[in-house]
C-alpha cells in the first residue's frame, strides 16, 4: 500500500541552452503527471478510501501489482522518452506498450477502489469518496480516448481530442482527486466538521459538468469550429462556480482555526495548497476568455499557470497527504520535523519565485508578439527570468530531495520502495 507513494519531482533548469531540452521536457511532463502526482494520488487514495469506508482494501495484492506496473511504466518512460521515442502528442507521449500498461493499471486501481467502496461498513458516502469514485471512472476513459495510440485522426481533430485529454488529465484526475484529498485532510487535520455537505456536493457536480469540455481553450485561435471554442470558453468561466463553492467550504471549515496552520505542518501544506488553488482557478477562466487569450497565449505565463496548478496546488496537497498518512500507516513519527519545515519553505519560496519569473517572462513575450518584435530580440530580454526560474527549480528539487530523504529515513525498514525513485530524481535533475 505504501509502495504507491513515490517521488520524482524533476524540475528543469532552463537558464542555459540545454542539450536536448525537448527530451527532458517530455520526461518532465510525464514524470510529474504519471510518476509523481498519479502514483502519489493512487497511494493516498489506497489509504483514504479504506479509512473512510472503515474496511480493508478489497485486494491488497492487486494494489501492489498495480504499483509495480506503474513503476515499470515510469522506468520505461525514462528509457524511451529521453531517446525520443515519442508519439509526438503533448501530455500523451508514451509509446503504445506503456499506454496499454497505464490504462490496465488504472482500470485495476479503479476496480480495486470500487470493490472496496462496495464492501464499505459506513452507509453514507463522504464527499471525498464521491470525488474518488468520479475520477476513477472518468480518468481511465479520458486516458484511453486521449492517447490516440492506435488511430490516426486528421490534424485538427487530433488536436481537439489531444486537448480534451491534455486538460482533463487535470480536470478529471488531478483536480478531482486533489480536491477530494483536501476534503479528507482539512477536517481531519483541524479536527473540525466540514462546513457544509450540500456545498461540497454542488462543487462536485459543478466540476463534473463544467470541467470536461474546457480543453479546446488551448487552441482558441486555431481554425477549429467556433461552437467548440464557445463551449470551451463558457464552461471555463462557469468553472468559477464550483471552484468558489469548494473554496468557500474549505475556508469556512478553517474559520477560527487558521492559527493551527502555523504549528501543524501537514495542515500548513494543505492550506497553502488551497490558497494556490484559489489563485490558479481565478487565473484560469480569465486566460480562457478570447481577449486575454489573444494576448497571453503561447507564452511562459501559461507555463506559470500550469505549474501553479500542478506544483502549487496538487503537489502541495499530495505532500500534505503523505505527511499526514505516513506516520499513521507505519506507526512511526517522521524522521525529522526540521526537514519537513525545510521542505515546506524551499518549495514554497522556490515556487513563488518560479511563478513570478514565469509570469513576468510571459508578459514580456506577450508584448513581443503583440508588437511584432522578432523572437530573438525579446528572448534576450527574458533571460534573467529564466535564470531566476532555474534557481527556483533548484530550490524545489532540493526541497523534494529532503522530502524523499525524510520519507526514506522514516521507513528505512523498506528501503527498496523509495531508493529507486530518489535515484531517478537525481538523474532527471542532472
Amino acid at each position, binding site marked *: 500500500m505504501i509502495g504507491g507513494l513515490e517521488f520524482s519531482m524533476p524540475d528543469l533548469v532552463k537558464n542555459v*541552452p540545454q*542539450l*536536448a*531540452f*525537448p*527530451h527532458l*521536457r*517530455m520526461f518532465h511532463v510525464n514524470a510529474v503527471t504519471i510518476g509523481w502526482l498519479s502514483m502519489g494520488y493512487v497511494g493516498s487514495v489506497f489509504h483514504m478510501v479504506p479509512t473512510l469506508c472503515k474496511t480493508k482494501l478489497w485486494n491488497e495484492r492487486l494494489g501492489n501489482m498495480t504499483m509495480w506496473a506503474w513503476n515499470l511504466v515510469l522506468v520505461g518512460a525514462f528509457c524511451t522518452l529521453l531517446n*525520443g*521515442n*515519442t*508519439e*509526438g*502528442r*503533448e501530455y500523451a507521449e508514451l509509446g503504445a506498450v506503456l499506454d496499454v500498461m497505464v490504462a490496465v493499471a488504472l482500470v485495476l486501481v479503479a476496480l480495486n477502489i470500487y470493490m472496496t467502496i462496495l464492501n464499505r461498513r459506513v452507509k453514507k458516502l463522504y464527499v471525498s469518496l464521491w470525488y474518488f*469514485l*468520479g475520477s476513477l*471512472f*472518468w480518468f481511465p*476513459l479520458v486516458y484511453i*480516448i486521449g492517447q490516440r495510440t492506435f488511430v*490516426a*485522426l*486528421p*490534424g*485538427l*481533430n*487530433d*488536436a*481537439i*481530442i*489531444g486537448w*480534451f485529454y491534455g486538460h482533463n488529465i487535470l480536470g478529471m484526475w488531478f483536480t478531482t482527486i486533489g480536491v477530494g484529498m483536501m476534503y479528507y485532510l482539512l477536517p481531519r487535520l483541524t479536527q473540525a466538521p466540514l462546513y457544509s455537505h450540500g456545498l461540497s456536493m454542488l462543487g462536485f*457536480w459543478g466540476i*463534473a459538468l463544467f470541467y*470536461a*469540455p474546457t480543453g*479546446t481553450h*488551448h487552441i482558441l*485561435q*486555431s*481554425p*477549429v*469550429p467556433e461552437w*467548440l471554442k464557445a*463551449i470551451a470558453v463558457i464552461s471555463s468561466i462557469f468553472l468559477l462556480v464550483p471552484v468558489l463553492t469548494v473554496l468557500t467550504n474549505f475556508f469556512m471549515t478553517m474559520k477560527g482555526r487558521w492559527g493551527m496552520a502555523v504549528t501543524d505542518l501537514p495542515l500548513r501544506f494543505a492550506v497553502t495548497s488551497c490558497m494556490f488553488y484559489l489563485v490558479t482557478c481565478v487565473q484560469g477562466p480569465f486566460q480562457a476568455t478570447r481577449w486575454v487569450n489573444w494576448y497571453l497565449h*503561447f507564452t*511562459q505565463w*501559461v507555463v506559470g499557470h500550469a505549474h501553479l496548478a500542478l506544483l502549487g496546488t496538487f503537489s502541495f496537497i499530495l505532500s500534505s497527504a503523505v505527511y499526514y498518512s505516513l506516520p499513521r500507516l507505519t506507526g512511526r513519527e517522521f524522521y525529522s520535523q526540521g526537514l519537513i519545515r525545510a521542505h515546506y519553505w524551499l518549495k514554497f519560496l522556490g515556487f513563488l519565485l518560479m511563478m513570478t519569473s514565469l509570469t513576468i517572462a510571459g508578459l514580456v*513575450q506577450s508584448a513581443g*508578439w503583440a508588437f*511584432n*518584435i*522578432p*523572437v*530573438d*530580440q525579446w*528572448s*534576450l530580454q527574458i*533571460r534573467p527570468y529564466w535564470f531566476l526560474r532555474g534557481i527556483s527549480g533548484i530550490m524545489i528539487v532540493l526541497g523534494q530531495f529532503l522530502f524523499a530523504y525524510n520519507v526514506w529515513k522514516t521507513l528505512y525498514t523498506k528501503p527498496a520502495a523509495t531508493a529507486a525513485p530518489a535515484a531517478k530524481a537525481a538523474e532527471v535533475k542532472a
Partner: protein
Amino acid sequence: MHSYRLGAIGIVVTFFVIIFSTVLMPMVLFNPKPNDRSNQYSRIPKNIADAERGRKIYVREGCFYCHTQFTRLQDRGYGPLVKAGDYVWETPHQLGTARTGPDLTNEGGRMASEWQKAHLIQPRAVKPGSIMPSFSYLNERDMNDLVAYLQCLGNRREVHAFVEAPDEYRTTTPAGVALHNRKTVDTNASASANAGRGIYTQNCAVCHGLNGLGEGPNATALEKKPPNFSRPYYKQYSDEFWFYRVSEGVPGTRMPRWIETLTEEQRWYLVAYLKTLPQDSEITINNLNQIDKVEDIRLPKLSNQQYEPHHGGHGGHSEGSGDNMSPSEHQMPGQTTPPATKTPSSTTGTSTESGTSKTDGHGAEHKEGGH
C-alpha cells in the same frame, strides 16, 4: 443504497454527455475537406531528402514544444493564415502550445537550406541571442530530412496575382518621382508598422475592424461593406497601391480621402502597417468546374470576372467600384501565367535546395526587417 445508485448514474451520464458534446460531435460535424494548400511533402524528390521522414524527426526531437504551427490573426509578418483544411493530413498534429521560438507555419523557403542546417547545428552562429538548443547530434541524413521538412512548411500558401497603382503614384511620372523623393518612412520596418498600427486603430478600425477583417462596428451600418484585408488579393498590393487607396479613398463608398486629414508621413506609416496584416489562405475559384456541384441546384451563369476576388466575395465591397482596370489585368490565382512577384530584395528565399522561390514577399520582408 438508493442515493448511491442515483449518484453513480449521474456520474456516468454527465461523463457521456460531455464525451458526446466535445469528442464525438466534433468528430462527426467537423470534417474539413483537404485543400490544395496543405504542406506537400512529396515536393522534394526522395533522392535529395525525405521530408516525410523529416516530419518524424521533428516529432522525435520535440520541436513542437517551442515552435507552433498555426498563424493567428494578430501575428503580423508570419505569412498567410491557416485554414482547417490545411491540417487534414497532419497527424499527430504539430500545432504546438508555446512559442519559445518563432512560429514555423510558413517557414518553408524563408531561409536557405544551408542556413537552416547551420542553425540546427549551432543556432547562435547564425542568430545571436537565440536560445534554441543545438541539435548537432543529429546525423547527416536526419539533418537533411529535417531541413527538407522545414522547407515544405507552408510553401503552397502563395499569392499569385498582381495589381498596380495609378501612374501618378508610380515612378513612371514626375509626380510619382516627387512623391517617392519626399518619402522618409521605411515601409518595410517593424517600427513603421507599429507606428502605423496606432494611426490605424484611431482612424480605420471603426469600419475595418481591429485586425482588418472589415468587421468594425460601423461596418454593420454601411451599404458597401469594408473589405477583408486578410484576403490573399490584398497581399499583391504594392506600397504605392496602398498609398493610393489610403490617400484617395474609394469612390462610391464611405471610405474617405485620407489625404485631407492625414499627413503624407502618417499615410506611409499606415501602409507599413497594412502590409503586415495577416493573410487568410482563402481559396479563390478560378473556374466553375472547381466548385462542388449540387446536381439539383442550377447555378447562375457566371463569368470569370464575377468570381474574381476584386468583385466577388465580401458582399459587393468597395474595391471594384473605383478602379477602371481592364479585365485582362485581373489575373486569377492558379492561372498558368507565372505570377509577377514582388521579389524581395533579399535573396535568401531563392537558394533552397529545390530552387523554390517563395512568393510571399510579405514574410520575407519580415525576416529582413527583424531577424
